């Protein structure tokens, strides 16, 4: 998209020289770097519960964030009013972080180029509501039809269309139009006299509505949610203690996100507070493990043409054959660590300061047949699906919770197991990876990552993985 065609130019009447003036104002107290992040966000959501479409909402949010960096210091201010006076005021507030005379004469902006990873002609947010409402109705019907033991179904559909513009004092002006959509289904199953069990499934990405009509239909997600709920009816409580764990492909890749991803974000390492600090070049995983963070995969939920600081996203190798090779950098950390940005500067909205974040984090496929991996385990746990996870960056301890798992006995999957929380230590856990499947799969597109109060969409993925030793937090 060109600046002159953007909503910021056409509707809000912002001219290029306005941006240059605001940046000069932001640097008027002597800061080293400044940027402006404009955002125009349209959101919609639809919810069905008890087969009734109970909630349909739509919203608009507009604003600009002004950031000034002076050495290690950051000043930030934002405005939800795009009038020149309000932006100028925000720029002056952000400028307070620096104390001195300006040493910038003038900023001249040139339009930069990013990728074109989500060439969506019509964003889902721009389609008729009646078409989108049909998605949750179909999901509701399909989940209920799956099995008579399904007694509650909730489905929600949400999309947004974010138009962003980043202007930096280094003269770069980038624009992007970022569509995002997600369909989620939750189902409860029950047998007479037993306790209910829940199943959940969902997916989406930076896609058009056709994705849900042709590729991953409401019925696909609905049946998956219902299948998990019904499967869990026969489940037993999780075992407790150290054992061999096999992770299925796809969403269980949340392991990488928690165990290594956060610990490799440059801000934590610059400050020396990560369990991975100072370990560059060291072995932190078995040599079977190569871990990538790639923001350039077409139509993925975690992908971006440019990050929220105007840098094109990249494919970054974090761990190569078990050796730590890279951090995820944003503008501030890369300046201070004298390294290149990795296109990993992200923020939740114009009201938030950017920081290094993941995009799509996954492990490269290995050689093993997934069936052989399971056959190789005399006694252990196979985890097929997960809820969420969390990590303590400093100690490196992380947990993630399996919503659907199975006991492995004599090389075969036997009883379903519910609520198995797995716990491990980031720099140690992947050293016990002894087999990597040839079946790399990325998740369906439901991930939300939280850091310091900011949420951003992300993706994860792994092939089937065998981890020889991990602690399972059950009761048996």
């Amino acid at each position: 998209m060109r600046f002159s065609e953007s909503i910021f130019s056409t509707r809000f009447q912002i001219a290029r020289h306005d941006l240059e003036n605001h940046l000069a104002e932001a640097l008027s107290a002597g800061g080293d770097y400044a940027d402006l992040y404009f955002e125009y966000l349209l959101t919609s959501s639809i919810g069905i519960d008890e087969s009734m479409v109970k909630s349909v909402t739509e919203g608009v949010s507009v604003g600009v964030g002004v950031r000034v960096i002076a050495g290690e210091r950051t000043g930030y201010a934002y405005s939800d009013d795009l009038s020149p006076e309000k932006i100028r005021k925000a720029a002056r507030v952000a400028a307070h972080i620096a104390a001195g005379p300006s040493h910038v004469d003038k900023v001249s902006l040139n339009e930069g180029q990013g990728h074109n990873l989500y060439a969506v002609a019509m964003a889902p947010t721009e389609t008729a509501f009646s078409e989108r409402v049909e998605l949750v109705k179909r999901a509701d019907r399909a989940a209920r039809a799956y099995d008579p033991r399904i007694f509650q179904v909730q489905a929600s559909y949400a999309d947004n269309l974010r138009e962003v513009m980043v202007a930096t004092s280094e003269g770069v002006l980038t624009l992007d139009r970022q569509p995002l959509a997600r369909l989620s289904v939750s189902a409860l199953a029950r047998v007479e006299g037993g306790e209910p069990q829940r199943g959940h499934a969902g997916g989406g990405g930076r896609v058009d509505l056709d994705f849900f009509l042709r590729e991953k239909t409401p019925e696909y997600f609905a049946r998956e949610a219902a299948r998990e709920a019904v499967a869990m009816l026969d489940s037993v409580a999780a075992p407790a203690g150290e054992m061999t764990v096999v992770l299925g492909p796809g969403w269980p890749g949340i392991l990488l996100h928690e165990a290594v991803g956060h610990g490799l974000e440059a801000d934590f390492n610059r400050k020396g507070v990560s369990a991975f600090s100072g370990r560059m070049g060291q072995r932190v995983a078995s040599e079977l493990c190569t871990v990538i963070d790639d923001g350039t995969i077409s139509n993925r939920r975690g992908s971006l043409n440019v990050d929220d600081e105007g840098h094109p996203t990249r494919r970054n190798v974090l761990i190569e054959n078990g050796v730590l090779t890279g951090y995820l950098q944003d503008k501030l950390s890369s300046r201070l660590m004298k390294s290149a940005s990795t296109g990993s500067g992200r923020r939740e909205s114009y009201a938030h300061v950017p920081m290094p974040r993941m995009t799509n984090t996954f492990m490269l496929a290995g050689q093993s047949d997934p069936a052989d991996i399971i056959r190789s385990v005399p006694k252990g746990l196979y985890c097929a699906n997960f809820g969420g996870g969390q990590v303590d960056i400093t100690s490196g301890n992380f947990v993630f919770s399996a919503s659907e798992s199975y006991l492995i006995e004599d090389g075969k999957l036997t009883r379903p197991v519910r609520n198995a929380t797995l716990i491990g230590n980031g720099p140690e856990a992947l050293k016990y990876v002894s087999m990597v499947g040839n079946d790399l799969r990325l998740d369906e597109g439901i991930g939300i990552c939280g850091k310091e109060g900011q949420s951003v969409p992300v993706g994860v993925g792994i092939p089937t993985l065998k981890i020889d030793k991990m602690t399972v937090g059950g009761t048996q």
Partner: protein
Amino acid sequence: MSSGENHLSELARDIVRRAVAAGAGDAECTIEEGDEFSANVRMRELENLKEAGSRAAGLRIVRGQRTGSSYTSDLSEEGIARLVKSAIELADVTTDDPHAGLPEPEELGAIEGDLRLFSADVDTLDTEGRIALARRAEAAALDADPRITNSEGASFDSYAGRHIFANSRGFAGDYRSSSCSLSVVPVAKDGESMERDFWYHSARSLGRLEAPEQIGRTAAARALRRLNPVKVATQKVPVVFEPRVAASLVENLFEAVHGMMIYRHESFLAGKLGERVASEKLSLIDDATVPGGFGTSPFDDEGVASRRTVVIEGGVLKSYLLNTYAARKLGMKTTGNASRGLTGNAGIGHGNFFFANGVLPPERIIAGIADGFYVTELIGMGVNIVTGDYSRGAVGLWIRNGELAFAVSEVTIAGKLQDMLMGVEEVGDDLEFRGSVAAPTLKIGEMTVGGK
């Protein structure tokens, strides 16, 4: 903010009138405005300053038995026109729901009198003064012990805002609120062992904020006691939750008594009203009327007066937490717990939600345990409210012969919430509010610790 207050209250009423004129049977409008400030200091140097104000409006309309919602941060004439048009149009694609709709007029109301939610002093300190508070808190942590070698910083945050609500059944109300908080995250190091912890305090008024030095020293002590942790063997032992961790159980129970979860049978407490669900030593109370509380408000997000609700009394489940919709589904009355952001149907929230204080000092609880686990932090989301299955990552100290003996980490604690509630053997006398959710120290008779 003073010049804008009448304007925004009038705007909320005007949006309701315009929605009704455009065809809504009923309408309700929420407007939020607020100013936030944050200063962050790390390793004794200023690191971040953030300052901004924002405002936005949300509208929900009911037409027949259908509802539509919208929100906008664009309060221009064009933005408001779109807000109204959008909510009206969206109602057309929803389904008739016989339970939808606003509270009955006689249910609407507000608590009278000063609830002490706003104190102008949060705005009186200049930027340098605010930075100085964060600097002093971090310095106290860094100076507490040579093993405090690093820090994720200290923050001073403040907020002052106004909440405005009007509906087409004659309710119009607004209230201001303020808060400020100071937090510190020190990092302790000893050989290869590196651990962080945090401590904080928040208050509605700057004058009531704890001394920065006290917050910093507590944070340092918490990080230091985590050094050189042991991963213990898998075993079943008594578990003691310190207050900060016990409060997370209150949050779990909030979901379990949440009216929406109840009518959908998504909670292990659905259908258990009047039954014994916890140890008789346990009472759980929701009280949105406590002056100055972080969960206090004169009215809920549907315009129903806030109140005090006893949820569990002496182990017996007495009430769920309900908004108008959940109450109608269950054939009950709202408990004044409607909560929402700017848009969508009302959800359910809590006021000041807490386990009632007990009688035993926490030291006495620990002294009575030969072998057990004192939990100081939980991570992960392994709580299933449908079944009550509970399994979370835990950090803490091992109790040996009645004393806190050594640090423990990389373990899990697991059980069933049903059994954990019934298994509460002791309730501490140390209830203290640092937010809207609070609990005293709790001892649970037995849980599984998952380790080696």
